[in-house]
């Protein structure tokens, strides 16, 4: 899938709209003997910090023990998952690891983080009158950003091989003006909750996707 997610930031850096389109399931379930050969770090969740094997990567979180989902690092019966794993009597144990999806709060945080990065990139420019970040490239994705004259930012996360997304971003802006701004129940700078906008955006994204897949098949 070419488009992974889209975001709209208001001019203060607040996240006012986001959708995700990826639901790749790359959770890994394995049976382990004692002692555990994976090092887990404890913060608000249990994360793998050392010992990649069988598709379990650094950065994955422990999702379930013996098929029982963890909630807040605890097993359904209330025992702490880390204490459970320290006891040799509980082995062999089957553990499920995967990536925890970004929570809404984290998304809001990343939106404002991008807002500052955008501003700093202008400041550090070696050439005069530079805009902020337009495309950010990494090995696993590409982030395209379009800032309107009023300071609203449209962000699209795509595949690293995706070409320019200018047309899509312009179209995205058009949809925003048509369906979000003209909605009498929408107050400016506030999160967008508008069904018509959602459906039309989904439609446009599907169109773009079809166009790009055709292109890559040729």
């Amino acid at each position: 899938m070419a488009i992974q997610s889209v975001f709209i930031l208001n001019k203060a850096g607040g996240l006012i709209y986001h959708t995700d389109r990826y639901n790749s399931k790359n959770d890994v379930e394995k049976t382990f003997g004692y002692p555990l050969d994976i090092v887990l770090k404890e913060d608000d969740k249990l994360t793998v910090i050392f010992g990649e094997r069988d598709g379990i990567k650094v950065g994955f979180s422990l999702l379930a023990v013996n098929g029982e989902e963890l909630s807040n690092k605890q097993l359904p019966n209330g025992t702490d998952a880390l204490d459970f794993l320290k006891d040799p009597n509980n082995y062999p144990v089957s553990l499920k690891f995967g990536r925890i999806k970004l929570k809404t709060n984290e998304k809001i945080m990343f939106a404002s983080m991008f807002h500052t990065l955008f501003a700093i990139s202008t400041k550090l420019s070696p050439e005069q009158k530079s805009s902020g970040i337009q495309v950010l490239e990494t090995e696993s994705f590409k982030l395209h950003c379009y800032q309107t004259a009023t300071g609203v930012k449209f962000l699209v996360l795509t595949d690293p091989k995706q070409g320019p997304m200018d047309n899509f971003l312009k179209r995205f802006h058009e949809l925003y003006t048509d369906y979000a701004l003209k909605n009498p129940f929408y107050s400016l700078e506030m999160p967008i909750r508008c069904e018509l906008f959602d459906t039309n955006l989904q439609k446009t994204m599907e169109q773009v996707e079809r166009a790009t897949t055709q292109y890559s098949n040729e």
Partner: protein
Amino acid sequence: MTVYNIYIFNREGTCLYYYEWNRRTDCNMPKYEEFKLLHGMLFSIKSFVTRLSPIDGKNSFISYRTNKYKLHFYETPTGLKFVMNTDLAVENIQDTLHDIYNKIYVEYIVKNPLCKLNEPIQSSLFRTKLDEHVKSLPFY
């Protein structure tokens, strides 16, 4: 095509080396503040990228571009960071930055017992070699 400037940071965020070829602006702030600002930005971009990435594995930041310039980033496993600003026409230059590390930094700084690591680079040999190397690049 142009190469504007280059920054080399160590893993603690100290700027080891800075050199500019064609810089057209002057940030109205002292150099040391600019280095701190840039390093802070790179650090944030790195954490931003690892968390935002939809897939796992290697998720390193490569470059970003604005409407005027492109910033290229290369990090060694030891945490040494090479940052080069060029114009927009330049493609992916990870190999070039790796060459600067491999052929110039390692040769003239690491192999020179008089150069202390983790301190700003004073060696004039390094400066001339880097200058020659960059000027011979096809996109200089």
